């Protein structure tokens, strides 16, 4: 059964609190018990508590599949990019190196096989929420309808187009950006800068405090 079309994945990294409930819940799946297919990153721990979950964005034209020399990575008809087929994967890590979002990991699980988030296909194909979006305490990860997200996040809008240099990627997973942001796509490389928002918030914080 395909994932019901009205149910979509939304991610708002601004809400991430770094608790790793998503990662811990991911590792509860019976097919890869004990190992998470997603991970959490601190963006700049010395300067900020900001974290971000790294889940598969499920690209329309998955770079990981395009660069796979063994044609091991397939996409379901409803747009979910799957883990490499066990019998085909040669563990070359091309996918891991090529993915612009840094999702697939070959080495973390200690075996020569690429495994990645498949949007909890066992759950979502039955209309259930994925584990990570079920448990996420701050609902940084959300699984539901566009109508629900419009009500819950009136200051955000979902986008699913990303630019990395010259490459434009469309994804199944939506990223929430401020409604005030005029762009229809997120230019990721343009946003990579030396100073994060948190640095700006931090500046002068303690200096103006009387210590």
């Amino acid at each position, binding site marked *: 059964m395909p994932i019901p079309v009205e149910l979509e994945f939304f991610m708002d990294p*601004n*809400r*991430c*609190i*770094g*608790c*790793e*409930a998503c*990662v*811990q*819940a991911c*590792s*509860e799946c*019976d*097919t*890869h*018990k*004990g*190992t998470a297919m997603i991970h959490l990153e601190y963006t700049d*721990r*010395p*300067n*900020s*508590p*900001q*974290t971000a979950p790294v889940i598969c964005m499920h690209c329309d034209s998955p770079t990981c599949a395009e660069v796979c020399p063994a044609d091991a990575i397939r996409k379901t008809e409803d747009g979910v990019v799957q883990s490499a087929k*066990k019998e085909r994967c040669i563990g070359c890590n091309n996918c891991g190196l090529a993915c612009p979002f840094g999702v697939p990991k070959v080495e973390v*699980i*200690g*075996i020569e*096989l690429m*495994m990645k988030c498949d949007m909890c296909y*066992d759950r979502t194909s039955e209309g259930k*929420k994925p*584990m990570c979006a*079920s*448990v*996420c*305490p*701050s*609902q940084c990860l959300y699984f539901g309808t566009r109508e629900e997200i419009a009500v*819950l*996040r*009136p*200051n955000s809008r979902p986008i699913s187009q990303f630019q990395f240099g010259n490459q434009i990627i469309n994804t199944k997973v939506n990223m929430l950006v401020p409604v005030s942001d005029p762009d229809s796509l997120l230019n990721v490389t343009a946003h990579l800068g030396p100073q994060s928002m*948190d640095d700006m*918030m*931090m500046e002068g*914080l*303690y200096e*103006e*405090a*009387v*210590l």
Partner: protein
Amino acid sequence: MALEQSNLLPVIDRWGPSLAYNEKPSQDSIDVADRMVDTHCCFCGQQCGITLKVKENRVIGFEPRYDFPFNEGMLCPKGVKRYLQGSHRDRLETALARDESSPDGFRSVEYDQAIEKVASEIKRVQEKYGHSAVGVLSGASLTTEKAYLMGKFARVCLKTPYIDYNGRLCMVSAGAANKKAFGVDRAANAWDDIVGADVVWISGANIAECAPITTNYVWQAREMGAKIIVVDPRITPIARTADVFLPIRPGTDAALFNGVLQIMIENDWLDHDFINNHTVDFDKLVEHVSQWTLDRTAQVCGVSKKKLMQAAELWGKASSSFLLHARGIEHHSNGVENCLGAINIVMASGRIGRKNCGYATITGQANGQGGREHGQKCDQLPGARDISNPEHREYISKIWEIDEAELPGPGVDCYEMMRKIHSGEIKLLLSLCFNPKVSLPDSEYVGAALDKLQFLACIDFFMSETARHADVVLPGSLQEEDEGVVTQIEGRVIKINKAVEPPGDAKQDWKIIQDLTKALGRTQGFSFNSPREIFDELRIASKGGTADYSGITYEKIDAQGGVFWPCPSDDHPGTRRMFEPGSNNPIAKGAGPFYFPDGKARFCISEHRPPAEETDEEFPVILTTGRVVSQFLTGTQTRRIGPLVDQYPEPLIEIHPVLAEKLGVKDGQWTTVETRRNTVTLMAQVVKTIRPDTIFVPYHWPGKRSANRLTISAQDPISKIPAYKVCACKVYPAKEPPHYENEVEAREHPKPKLEIIQM
């Protein structure tokens, strides 16, 4: 003599902590649950709904419980991995007696023999030294039925005044302040009132790590337009996106609230109708806070005048608001004053007892609220009654079928009990659901007290660091092995359902207590056959008290998704929001919504007192302590769950780069923290997310890694809460790496390697 073993290696080898991981799956042996049990998480005060997957007598996993209204499936990493505590290698399945000839310190004994031994020691000590030579320690993670039974057991069976509980380390400052101001001690609102508030004020609460699901309520409020004010010495995840962040100097919260109130008065951001009609003593407070000018407040609190003014203006002009605080303002030698300060700015705004207008402390333990209501607190009787009040004593004595004169008077707080062990007044201790060796401040002193006891009996499911000192350990029950109610963070009474039976000789704690009464030959009032029977007596005992549970039944809890107390009759739905205009209570009897004879709330002066130990030339840095998201309290459970330990394996010293540079401390280097009590050597984590005059160390670890070796045993004079959140220390690069070899967790069960299953 209850001495800890000198060589801990064989003790840890046998009793843990060892790390449990998900069992390695294989193609043929994917565990399929044969039962799904709807219940709640065993850890914090939020009490998230969770569904446990059970196969035979084992909990094998979980499913999100989407139908429980508080969390709708959400869980933090502790909730996700909690099931790994069941079927754990370290689980105590037999009674244990101290055996010096055994390298691990204990030998298994028949359960009945162990009960007899504890009972005979109690008799011996009480015959020789009197009833009050026996003390009882209890816990706020217990169900309310057990908490009630422990209070009754101490007073009626053991006839000792000395019972206290580990909620002493959690909610007592807030509880005392709530009683002074409102006459009753409960979170005033359900959490959905947060979502509609204009302004959410959060003081001393690392919500993202200590009450993670509450984050969603706060941030949903922000989506709807709320402004968020966060007051904390650290930039916590919830502080990161606050509209106003005040990086307060630890120990100055009362001053900050007084300063805010002074700004509110100067600008007339006050609800005069509310103040005139529903409160008393505002005038006295006006006079007191006039000394807290903007300049002085900013200077004392170490925050900028501009930001302080911004916060006060947002708060002052709001039309609806919710104020939350937690241990950050409560764990102080003036914790009650700090909480009163918070309550004062709520009451002056008039924003309480209405939709989207609320105030609450964020309770820490599973039954932080319910565990403080029904008599395991040293000065309290069931129904939040007062053990010194003759009418209350009379009522409870009647329920317990004893002569009022036989009911002991108030005891002392749990830290004072440690002092009474040192002074020789308390000779024997029975401890359930409490790990004082790790949780109490100045832990070397606490360990010495345990060593000094003539006899220590612990009821535990794992060998806690305290139980290592025990003469007898009785195998108790995990949360999923029993049923009963707890009252969560919002004041909602919910039901814990039994998923599995205790293994081996382990028993539900209430059965163990009743077995002790039998062995003591003092069984009158202890013939309960089930938690439900205990609950039925508790309902009557609470009737007419402020925490009235008399209309709550297990069935009503199931039907309504929990019942908010007070619920004084069978047809009463419970009280979702406290202090609504026109609401009734047993004290005011209709005179007003607050729990005083005139129905009015009390403004109380919130006196700023400097911390018990201030920084000086020798100890120039402030030490503050707290939690991380993947561990819980003393870690008796969470330090045994592999994936949680891997997430944050060792305590780190958080230190600002400016301070680190000054002291020669480097990121990732062994660093020593020294206080007047002791020293601890840990790795430094150099981050800009903490005040440059303050360091932070989390407290979940025992032994040489224990933050509580450093903390001071100063207590609030009213609530007796210890001042975990501020003491003076010095910090320097370690002279040599620390020697933890004798106590680091054994890792007999290394993380299993993944075997891929393709379905």
